[in-house]
């Protein structure tokens, strides 16, 4: 329009230049193309390059490893607790320490293990599954990892310094408020929440945009792998639910640090406000952990039964409806708080409905196995372990959905048993299965099958031994979160069994780790598609090259690798001298734009440091909000400042 004339001339010159640009295609393929892509996509070497990376595979790997370390740490705390509870009236661990232990255990498992590990797996595998070279917003992705890491370090650093939180992972006010938790313990917890929720929200935005915009051409929504569907639902749920805990914990920390009165019932505040906000997040959180696992199960079942998952639309609808229902159920964590009695039947009915989509999904998996040819390899074993365990956990879940029953069982070991069945059975088993399944893709080597099978049976049986007796101790009246219990109430035996079981579980986890480490060096070299699977991550080498795919694949069916006759259709014409990915339309996945991918950059890391200093300092002085915000803002501006005049040699602007 109003451009000065020299720019128009420039346009023409650029248009000529565009013809000369190197692009992948029939003229440039094979080793020559790979070398060019490698040069374009590789990150700078050295420690700085390592910190600056924006490669989703590196970030995903770090996410997974870090989360597994936190799992080990949280599990170690669980062992300590089980030791204390092995005998009645035990004096092994003091009340204060025990309260720190279960707070750390719960917070670590929920915020530092379960959610991040799912995000980590997704960040690694989703772009490969979708047939693209990078996630959307790779720098945001890197930032998300660093925020997560610093949040975890804050919590565990505090534990090492003996100022770990002791208020439970749910931090009910007023116990966590300024009056009843003086000192810094509760502040540390609240800021750890801030870190992890920023991280989770950033990762959620990355995943939503990646899944909606970067799918391979032809991969319509109805052809998307079920794991991608699960992660899409989960990411949207994170976007709606995490702000609740963000708001709640900000209000808590401002009550504690600057004297607001949100939760102070002596000054018109309300202690239950915390619970409503917390569970508005906390209930969806359970599904945020569980739904990715259902995605894993769908992937494994499909591959090992050699049959597309039965009733794909039903599974998708089940995922979405679970996601929606999860937002209507938060009060069922609050049955004992004196909710209006007229509502009990409503809450019961609403809580029970969530069983329907889950039951339908389980049916679809069983039907897939029924109709397919199941191969009982390690990942499939984990799926079967998952189904058995999860069904038990689901049944106890239906029981406690009923208000009268829940009023009896709430906050007892019955609940502890229930949610460990749902979370370990429902999420950790599929996770171990999927790690075995994707291990060759990530590392290029296979895990040992024998060790894997031994590992599965020990963890499966050990798990039942640990948690089944807890149903009993709960029914016998053992409340949660007690550091000791009196003798003579019949609680000795179930507790002893649980403790023994816990050590069996721990040994099988050690076995899994050993298997993982040994296989890294000794495992059989993995081919591109060792399991004969169907989704696109198996259409590239194991491990994938830094640019994922030499050519962006085209998808013509829901099970692409099973339906192609030897040759994979691909599009051509993406640049090889610049990092570039293909954007497609949201629903139909028709090619839409070529999107430049930002280079590796230290700014996400620097920003995360600035923000971390800001948050941690604010525990000690409210002025940190002022002097912390400025460096953070500068770092963010530097992050987004475009490096150069990018006069793209491009055709039309529409």
């Amino acid at each position: 329009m109003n451009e000065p004339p020299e720019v128009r001339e420039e346009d023409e010159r650029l248009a000529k230049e565009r013809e000369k640009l190197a692009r992948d295609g029939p003229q440039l393929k094979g080793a020559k193309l790979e070398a060019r892509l490698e040069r374009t996509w590789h990150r700078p070497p050295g420690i700085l390059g390592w910190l600056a990376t924006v490669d989703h595979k590196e970030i995903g790997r770090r996410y997974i490893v870090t989360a597994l370390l936190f799992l080990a740490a949280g599990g170690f705390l669980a062992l300590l607790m089980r030791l204390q509870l092995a005998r009645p009236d035990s004096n092994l661990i003091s009340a204060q320490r025990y309260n720190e232990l279960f707070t750390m255990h719960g917070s670590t498992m929920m915020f530092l293990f379960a959610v991040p590990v799912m995000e980590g797996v997704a960040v690694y595998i989703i772009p490969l599954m979708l047939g693209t070279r990078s996630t959307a917003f790779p720098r945001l992705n890197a930032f998300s990892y660093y925020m997560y890491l610093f949040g975890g370090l804050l919590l565990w650093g505090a534990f090492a310094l003996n100022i770990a939180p002791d208020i439970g992972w749910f931090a009910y006010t007023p116990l966590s408020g300024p009056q009843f938790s003086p000192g810094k313990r509760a502040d540390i917890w609240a800021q750890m929440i801030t870190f992890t929720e920023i991280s989770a929200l950033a990762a959620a935005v990355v995943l939503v945009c990646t899944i909606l915009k970067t799918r391979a051409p032809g991969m319509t929504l109805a052809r998307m792998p079920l794991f991608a569907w699960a992660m899409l639902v989960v990411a949207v749920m994170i976007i709606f639910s995490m702000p609740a805990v963000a708001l709640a914990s900000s209000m808590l920390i401002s009550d504690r640090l600057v004297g607001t009165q949100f939760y102070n019932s002596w000054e018109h505040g309300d202690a239950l406000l915390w619970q409503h906000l917390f569970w508005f997040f906390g209930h969806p959180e359970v599904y945020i952990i569980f739904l990715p696992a259902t995605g894993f199960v769908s992937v494994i079942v499909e591959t090992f039964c050699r049959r597309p998952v039965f009733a794909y639309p039903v599974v998708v609808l089940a995922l979405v409806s679970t996601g929606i229902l999860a937002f209507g159920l938060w009060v069922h964590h609050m049955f004992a708080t004196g909710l209006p009695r007229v509502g009990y039947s409503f809450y019961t009915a609403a809580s029970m409905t969530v069983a329907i989509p889950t039951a339908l999904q389980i049916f679809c998996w069983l039907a897939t196995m029924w109709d397919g040819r199941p191969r009982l390899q390690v990942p499939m074993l984990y799926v079967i372990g998952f189904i058995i365990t999860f069904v038990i956990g689901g049944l106890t879940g239906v029981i406690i959905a009923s208000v009268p029953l829940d009023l009896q069982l709430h906050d007892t070991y019955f609940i502890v048993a229930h949610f460990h069945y749902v979370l370990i059975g429902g999420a950790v088993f599929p996770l171990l299965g999927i790690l075995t399944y994707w291990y060759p893709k990530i590392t290029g080597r296979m895990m040992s099958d024998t060790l894997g099978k031994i590992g599965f049976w020990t963890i499966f049986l050990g798990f039942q031994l640990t948690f089944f007796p807890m149903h009993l101790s709960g029914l016998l009246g053992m409340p949660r979160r007690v550091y000791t219990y009196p003798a003579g109430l019949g609680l000795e035996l179930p507790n002893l069994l649980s403790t023994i079981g816990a050590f069996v579980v721990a040994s099988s986890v050690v076995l899994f780790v050993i298997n993982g480490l040994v296989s890294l060096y000794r495992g059989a070299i993995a081919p591109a598609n060792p399991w004969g699977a169907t989704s696109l991550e198996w259409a590239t080498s194991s491990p994938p090259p830094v640019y994922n795919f030499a050519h962006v694949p085209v998808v013509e069916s829901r099970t692409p690798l099973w339906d192609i006759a030897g040759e994979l259709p691909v599009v051509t014409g993406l640049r090889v001298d610049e990092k570039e990915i293909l954007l497609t339309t949201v629903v139909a996945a028709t090619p839409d734009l070529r999107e430049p991918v930002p280079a590796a950059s230290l700014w996400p890391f620097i920003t995360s440091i600035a923000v971390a200093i800001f948050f941690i300092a604010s525990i000690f002085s409210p002025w940190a909000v002022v002097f912390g915000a400025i460096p953070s803002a500068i770092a963010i501006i530097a992050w987004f400042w475009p490096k150069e005049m990018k006069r793209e040699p491009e055709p039309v602007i529409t």
Partner: protein
Amino acid sequence: MHQHHHGDALGWTLDPLLTVPLALALLIFAVGWSRLSKRASTPVRPTLFLCGWLVLALSLTSPLHEAGERSFTMHMVEHELIMLVATLLLAASGAGAILAWGLPRPLRHTLAGSWKSPLQKLWRRLTEPVTATVIQGAVMWVWHAPPLFDRALDSFGWHVAQHACFFLSSLLFWWAMLHPRGRASGYGVSAACLFATSLIGGALGALMSLSSSPWYADYAAMGMTGIGLDPVDDQRLAGLIMWIPGGAFHGIAAMVLFYKWLRYSEGGARALSAN
């Protein structure tokens, strides 16, 4: 509470302010239908329209309306019938054309002339899914502000205005949800808007049901409301109806539209019926 007292039998509300527009609508529809039915058309749409009209007419004029003046819960049932059932059926019937044909010819032509623009432009603006969602949410929240709600309870005219607002905003809303522009991606937006609406309405219902004191003076003044609950519990029950069945209704609608979206997303139904 105007002119009614406890213990009176519940009667019909046949105020001309209500009955005349309702009857007129039905009349116009009947005329339009008789004119149009000479050309071929399926009976689905008229049936939907008639069902919607019936639900609307019954919820406004039947004893339910008077019961709504003695119990907030009953009032809520009335509102939910209007906003969830009647308007959904009316919007689904897509009976605009039939209604237009029912009008006298000169009026029809004037309307057709002005329909082009700017009325059409306004209509297109208002039936943007996000706009319609925001409008309905705002109408719902604002009318539940105690001074406004109390006013509606005290004066029949205001009450009609309240119901008209609910009726129009939800008609607009359902229209926007069911008739998206750009068929394929439209239903996705609709599903998201329905999910948001279930949260917006659910939040209002939840606040109502978790409140420890009644919000509305007229109901609070009753020692015991018409359905044998004290005003606090009556309000809680009303809130619960809005929150849980109301939220579920929007949730289910979201799922239905989502499913349609999914189907459209595959050009042919091939991938969907691959099993």
